[in-house]
C-alpha cells in the first residue's frame, strides 16, 4: 500500500466521521423529541438534561385522553381527499400538457406555477369572508377545497414531467395495434407513470398534512386539524414538555414515514420536476 493511498484512506475516514457527526447533529432534535415523549414531565424538565429516563407511555395515554383522534381524522380526511382530488384534476391536465399538448401549453404551465407563488396570507381574508358567507367555516370540506388548489400546480408540473418520459414510440405502437384511448391510458401509460403518481400523491399529502395558516383561521372545534391541536397543547402554567413531545411525535409520524419512503422522489417533487 503506497503512502498516498493510506493518506487517502485517512481523509476518507475523516469525511465519513464528519458526515455522521452532521447527521447526528441535525437529527438530534428529532431524537430528543421522541425520547422526551417517553419521559415523565419531571424527567423531561430536568437540568442537566437526561438522555434516557425510565420510559413510560403515560404521555401518549394523556394525549389520547385529550382527544387527539378527531384532529387526526380531520387531518387525514383533508389530506387524503384533497390528494385524490388533486390527482383527479391534475392527471388529465398533465396529459393535455405533455402527451397531446394544447396550443400554448407552455403558458398554461407557467400560469399554474405562478399561482403557487402568490402568498397564501393575501388570499386569507377574501377566502375567510366567502367561506363565512357560504356558512362553511369550521368545515373539513373547506380545507379539502383549499388544499386541492394549493397542491394542484405542483401536481400538474410533477405529473407532466413524468408523462414526458413515456416513450412516444410505445404509445404509437399501441395505437397501430388498434388500441383505443382508454386501453392506451390504462395498459400503456398507466404502468409507466405509476411510481410518479405515487410520488406526487405523497408530496401533496405531506403539504396538506402540515398546513397550518388556513387550518387555524378557518376551523374551530369540529374541523380543526393536527397542527391546531398541537397549539392548544401549550399551557402557561405547569409542565407540558413531555406531553407536547408525545403529541408532536404522533402528528409528525405519518409524514416522516411517507417522506422516508419516497426520499428518492422527494427532490423531483420539491423542484416541480426540474431536478431528477
Amino acid at each position, binding site marked *: 500500500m503506497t503512502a498516498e493511498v493510506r493518506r487517502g484512506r485517512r481523509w476518507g475516514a475523516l*469525511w*465519513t466521521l*464528519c*458526515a*455522521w457527526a*452532521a447527521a447526528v447533529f*441535525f437529527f438530534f*432534535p*428529532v431524537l*430528543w*423529541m421522541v425520547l422526551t415523549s417517553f419521559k415523565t414531565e419531571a424527567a*423531561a*424538565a430536568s*437540568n442537566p*438534561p437526561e438522555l434516557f429516563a425510565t420510559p413510560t407511555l403515560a404521555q401518549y395515554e394523556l394525549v389520547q385522553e385529550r382527544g387527539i383522534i378527531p384532529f387526526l381524522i380531520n387531518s387525514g380526511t383533508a389530506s387524503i381527499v384533497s390528494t385524490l382530488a388533486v390527482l383527479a*384534476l391534475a392527471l388529465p*391536465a398533465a396529459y*393535455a*400538457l405533455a402527451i397531446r*399538448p*394544447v*396550443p400554448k401549453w407552455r403558458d398554461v404551465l407557467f*400560469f*399554474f406555477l*405562478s399561482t403557487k*407563488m*402568490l*402568498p*397564501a*396570507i*393575501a*388570499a*386569507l*381574508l*377574501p377566502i375567510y*369572508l366567502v367561506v363565512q358567507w357560504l356558512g362553511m367555516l369550521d368545515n373539513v370540506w373547506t380545507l379539502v*377545497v383549499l388544499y*386541492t388548489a394549493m397542491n*394542484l400546480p405542483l401536481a400538474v408540473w410533477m405529473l407532466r414531467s413524468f408523462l*414526458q*418520459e413515456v416513450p*412516444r414510440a410505445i404509445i404509437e405502437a399501441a395505437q397501430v395495434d388498434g388500441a383505443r384511448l382508454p386501453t392506451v391510458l390504462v395498459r400503456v401509460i398507466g404502468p409507466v407513470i405509476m411510481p410518479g403518481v405515487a410520488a406526487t400523491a405523497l408530496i401533496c399529502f405531506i403539504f396538506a398534512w*402540515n398546513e*397550518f*395558516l388556513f387550518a387555524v*383561521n378557518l376551523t374551530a372545534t369540529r374541523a380543526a386539524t*393536527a*397542527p391546531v391541536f*398541537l397549539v392548544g397543547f*401549550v399551557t402557561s402554567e405547569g409542565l407540558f*414538555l413531555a406531553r*407536547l413531545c408525545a403529541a*408532536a411525535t404522533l402528528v409528525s409520524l405519518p409524514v416522516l414515514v411517507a417522506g*422516508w419512503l419516497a*426520499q428518492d422522489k*422527494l*427532490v423531483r417533487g*420539491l423542484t416541480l420536476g426540474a*431536478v*431528477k
Partner: protein
Amino acid sequence: MTIAPSPPVAAKPSPRGREPEPRRSERWTRRFPLLPALVFTIVVTQLPFVVTLVISTFGWNVLHPDDTAFAGLSNYVTVFTDGRLRAAVLNTVLLTASVVVVSILLGTVLALLLDRRFTGRAIVRTLLIAPFLIMPMASALLWKHVIYNPTYGLISGTVDMIRRLWGDTAPTRVDWVTDYPMTAVVASLVWQWTPFMMLIILAGLQSQSDEVIEAAHVDGAGPWQVFRSITLPHLRRYMELGALLGSIYVVQTFDAVFTITQGGPGTATTNLPYEIYLTMFRKYEYGEAAAAGVVVVIATIVVATFTLRVVSSLFREEMR
C-alpha cells in the same frame, strides 16, 4: 438525478412547429382534459384577489361596522406610511435572506459530505432529511419549548453541563428567544430548510460528469481547483433553483413566527404574513389588511417574474 435530460422522443422542439395547426374540434378535444383543473385553479386562487382588491378600497373595521365606507386609496397611504408595516417588510427580507443563504451554505457542505461512497451513507441521508419532514408547527413548538427554554431547554442544559466541567455550577439563565429573537427564528428555519437545499445540491453534484473531473485530475488540477473551477460553476444553477424555491416558501413563514416569538419583542420579528394576520384577526381592520395583501401580491409578482425567468431557462434547456 440530473436536471431533466429529456428522453429523445420528448425532445421534439415544439409540437406546433412540426404538426399542422390542429383543427377546431381537434383543438377542443385536446383542451378538454385541461379545463377542470384550469377552471378550478382560477376560481379558487384568482377570484379571491379580485375580492381583496375591492375590499382594499374600503374603510372597514369589523368592530365598527357602521363606519364601513368607500375609502379610495387611503388604506394604501396607511400601508406605505405605517411604521409597523415598514418594519415588517424589513424583517421579511432579513428573515428570508438569512434563512436561504445560511441553509444553502450548510446544504452545500452536507451535500459534499454525502457525495461519496461510505458506510451508512443511506442512513446518514435519511437522518439528514428528517428535519424537513417534521410538521413545521411541531418543529416550531419543539424549538420554542424544548430547545430554547431558559431553565430546562436543551441549549441551556448543554451550556450548563459544559460549564459544570469547569467547576462552575451557577446555572445559565439566558432567555434565548427574548434576547436573540430573530436569530432564534432563523435558526429553527435553517434547521428545517437545510435538508431541502442539500437534496437539490446533492442532485447537482451527482449529475456532474466524471469524465470532466477525471480529465482535470489528469491535467494536474488539485481537489480545490477542481471544486472551484468545475464543481462550483456546475452547481450554480442548482443553487439558484434552491434559492428561488426556498424564497417562495420562506417569505410565507407563519408557523415559526406565530409560535416562537409572536412577532416580538415589539415588532422585532414581525414579518409580513404575521403582520397582515394581526391586522386581520386582532385589529379587525379588513380594509387595511386587504391593501397590505395587494401590496404583497404586487411585490411577489415582481419577484416571481424574475423567478419564472430562471425556472423557464432551466425548462428550455430540458426541452432541447
